[in-house]
């Protein structure tokens, strides 16, 4: 390889360890480009929305259709109760986290397929990770695409520090899509208004938290949180997606308002 073809950084990368922290500090480089700055990533909850069936899913899909042409939407799906069943069976049989990750992927794929058929008449495609190269085209043509929320780590899914449930599930997969594409917003559609001090389904004294930073969240050390902890761990390292919003998808109009940039749920930010 001709060394004069390389930038100074290129030469350093070729000759030094990629685990040298001084070298890594030089790889921030020029500002990262926003690949799809107009796109919004929307995560539709599995247990919270899709498992409720028609009563919750139809109004939400209607709202998505109303926003076609106004907002570009990359829609990821959660897994939900069937993943919990598969995880239970797998845990009992001693299956490793990587295999549980494969099982979770299958369930979020089922949910993506169902939404895909319900939105098919609008020409909205479902894409798998191998088809992400076509995502910008579909988004430009149809204004929305559907993908399964699980990151495609499968057998290579890292273990959690506690327990065996894959730690990077559909919240994380959707969040990372929003970060890598430099998307305009990351909206988590769940069945609660947002973050509470405890699970509001179990604790009636749980208090709603409209805005919070990652640092404040760490201090609170909540027993239960509304988004996967790995999203909260990734956010401080993010270049683009330094805030997310969790909204209640059971309330008509919430998604539209969130897409319009309004504060309707809990905004969690890294800064």
């Amino acid at each position, binding site marked *: 390889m001709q060394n004069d073809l*390389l930038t100074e950084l290129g030469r350093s990368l070729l000759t030094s360890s990629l685990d040298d922290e001084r070298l890594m500090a030089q*790889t921030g480089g020029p500002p990262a480009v926003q690949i799809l700055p107009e796109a919004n990533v929307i995560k539709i909850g599995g247990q919270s929305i899709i*498992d409720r069936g028609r009563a919750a899913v139809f109004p939400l899909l209607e709202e998505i259709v109303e926003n076609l042409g106004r907002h570009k939407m990359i829609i990821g799906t959660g897994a939900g*109760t069937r993943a919990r069943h598969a995880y239970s069976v797998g845990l009992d049989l001693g299956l490793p986290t990587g295999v549980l990750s494969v099982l979770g992927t299958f369930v979020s794929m089922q949910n993506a397929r169902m939404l895909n058929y319900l939105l098919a008449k609008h020409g909205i495609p479902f894409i798998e990770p191998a088809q992400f190269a076509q995502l910008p085209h579909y988004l430009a043509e149809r204004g929305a695409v559907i993908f399964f929320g699980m990151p*495609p780590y499968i057998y*290579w899914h890292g273990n959690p520090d506690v327990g065996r449930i894959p730690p990077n599930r559909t919240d994380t997969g959707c969040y990372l899509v929003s970060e890598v594409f430099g998307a305009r917003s990351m909206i988590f559609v769940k069945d609660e208004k947002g973050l509470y001090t405890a699970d509001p389904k179990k604790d009636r004294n749980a208090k709603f938290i409209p805005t919070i930073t990652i640092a404040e969240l760490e201090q609170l050390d909540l027993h239960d949180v*509304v988004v996967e902890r790995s999203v909260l761990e990734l956010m401080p*390292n993010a270049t683009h997606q330094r805030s997310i919003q969790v909204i209640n998808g059971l309330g008509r109009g919430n998604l539209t308002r969130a897409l319009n940039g309004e504060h309707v749920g809990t905004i969690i930010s890294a800064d």
Partner: protein
Amino acid sequence: MSAQSFLLIDVMYEENTQLTDSPKTNDGRHHVQSMLMRESLLDKDVQKSTETPVFRMLPEAHVIKIGGRSVMDAGRAVVYPVVEALAGCLKTKKLIIGTGGGARSRHVFSIGIDLGLPTGVLAQLALADSLGNAHILGTLLAPYGVVAIPPEIFGHLLPLFITSAPGVIFNGDPPYSLWEHPPTIGRIPPHRSDAGSFLLAECFGCKSLTLVKDVDGLYDRDPRIHTNATFIREIDTAELRQRNLESLPFDRVLLDLLDNARLQQSFQIVNGRHPDRIAAALEGKHAGTIIYANPKSRL
């Protein structure tokens, strides 16, 4: 938990699916009966309850990662003896061989960073380089019945391949691609081929993980730059973190992965310039540096 609760697939169609139902019974969601039904998987107690012994899928197979820059890019003088050493091991052992991307990955990183591309894109681009090296090594090991397997089918068919052939080759990188985690410092993907090989060994419960590099193991400083660097024969992640070495001969994320491992409690780094050390490492001998998980990490 009784076995019955897992086998009873009882879909509960709740009659009254008002969205404001009480949290105790009818909560408007259609559940499948299971231990985790209705639970938040983010609840710390629920997470603890899921800690159970892990089944080993391929307990006899060894995972070996062959360095990209350290071995493959060094050319015939280094690669041929390594191939010979691997061929010798293949006579008695099942090998899952991962490869690094080497100089081409570093080059594409430098161009990509200059163009402002994010970490996930860099990770996606680098997959091609380690896959290229997998095919190069696969060509040289073809006489021994070992070839590179396309990544799309590798994981699912690995047990079949490893039973049918003495070994298989994959691109050591994990399939994180666009979903790679942004690193704390800079923009280089943190999960590269060392991490991919480790995660595979952990998931499949393999016998050992050996990283084949161009240094004898871990030193307190990069021995290629500092001639008086001190060799570290074995160390655990707690001490390694404490020493806060500036440069490591393996993906730094391995420290975290090792501490969270349930099966793979150590890995060994050996020097591919002394190919006999590869066989020694697979025999369970100490032939380079062994890195252990923090003994307290799983207590």
